[in-house]
């Protein structure tokens, strides 16, 4: 169970304050698959980073009673000077996973092969995404935060991601940030819209998408 209580996030740069999240209260239970919809700049990425623990709210708290993945979807989580394999080893060690087994899984799922020994800075965007996603699947989190990563990588990889995420449905929670309605429909059973710094839940996907388009 993952709970957000009174989350506020204010960014202050160069004397200007931007109040991005204005009191987000919600609960995500195991097995939920929720899409988070919102305009560009609504604060979706900020919300995801706060949920993952990468960023801290200005006010409020996040209560995590399940393991949460890092925000999947951009290469920010890997260290570019290290090789793919060393990144995997690091992640395995942090989360207490057997190192060799994790390496084997990632090598196989990402299909990176010998490129695993090269530094991540030499990877293409697609390769980085495959590495990051494969690592997160290897650790087997209770909750996956996905920031439209399934857009990167070729169709074969996208299909494997789809399969992997669908296979985890029911036992893992999925929070998907996306603009694409078909992605939302494939993976999610409910959706929430982020607007004016507040998160509004909709039980019906169509209603949610309609609300989002009306924003």
């Amino acid at each position: 169970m993952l709970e957000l209580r009174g989350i506020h996030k204010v960014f202050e740069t160069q004397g200007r304050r931007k109040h991005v999240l204005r009191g987000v209260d919600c609960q995500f239970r195991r097995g939920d698959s929720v899409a988070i919809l919102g305009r560009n700049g609504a604060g979706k990425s900020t919300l995801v980073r706060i949920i993952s623990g990468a960023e801290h709210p200005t006010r409020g708290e996040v209560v995590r009673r399940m393991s949460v993945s890092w925000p999947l979807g951009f290469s920010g989580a890997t260290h570019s000077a290290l090789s793919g394999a060393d990144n995997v080893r690091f992640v395995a060690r942090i989360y207490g996973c057997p190192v060799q087994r994790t390496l084997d899984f990632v090598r196989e799922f990402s299909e990176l092969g010998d490129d695993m020994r090269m530094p991540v800075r030499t990877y293409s965007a697609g390769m980085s995404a495959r590495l990051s996603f494969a690592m997160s699947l290897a650790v087997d989190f209770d909750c996956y935060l996905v920031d439209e990563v399934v857009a990167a990588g070729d169709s074969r990889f996208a299909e494997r991601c789809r399969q992997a995420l669908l296979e985890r449905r029911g036992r893992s929670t999925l929070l998907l940030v996306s603009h694409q309605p078909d992605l939302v429909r494939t993976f999610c059973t409910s959706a929430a819209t982020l607007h004016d710094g507040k998160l509004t839940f909709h039980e019906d996907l169509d209603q949610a998408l309609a609300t989002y388009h009306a924003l």
Partner: protein
Amino acid sequence: MSGAAQGIGLFGAMRIQAQVIGALVIREMHTRYGRENIGYVWLFIEPMILAAAIGLLHSLSGHGLPGGLPTFAFYVVGYTPFYLLRAVLNRAAGSVVQNAPLFYHSRVTVTDVVVARSLLEGAAVMVAMAVFITGIGIVTGEWPHDWVLMALGVVSLLALCHGAALIILSLTVLGEQNVERIVHPYTYLSIPMSGAFVMVWWLPYELHWWATIYPTVHSFEMTRAGYFGPVVPYHYDVPYLLASIVILNVLGLLALRVARPHLEA
């Protein structure tokens, strides 16, 4: 393998933190020294080069030291821990920015990163020290009087610097860009005050109290006492040192707490 965090209790949490810090230490080594075979060796060769150079310069210049302490050993025993002080303080400000990708993982906290760095620097300096001691011992036949006391001296210095590093980092995160610019020259300008190359007993008696206000003096005196033994008088106060360590680290953790909402990954 699930990374579930439910109901693990205090020991579970400590075990996880130890795991994370271990992973961070390995990662820091790989990042800084690469994977080539010779890479790790630079970890302790770096401090040794400068310490040896300074030791040689002073012993070749022919000037003696009060109490007849061996010159080369004195400067090496002073410079090697001082390198630790400089390394930990100078790297403190960049800890968050340089390691931005790490914080995407909820298990990795800023404290973990700073602790991992401190441990790595501490281990490197201790290996360097051990190599010097062995070398000096083999060549001159002089061995440390009490190596445990020496180790405690270095560890206490590390603990002091760790607390200071947390404070420096927090100030930098809170937007004080100039903190780093002050820290770098400070580590040089504070050399006389730090006690690395000056022993308290050299100073006139009236100045002894003033000289021992600065906490690192106690660490250096302890390290020297451990190496040279009771041939000269030492001035260090363990309770004062411990209190300084606790105060600095508590201040550091509090400062980090204040700075935390401003950490932007």
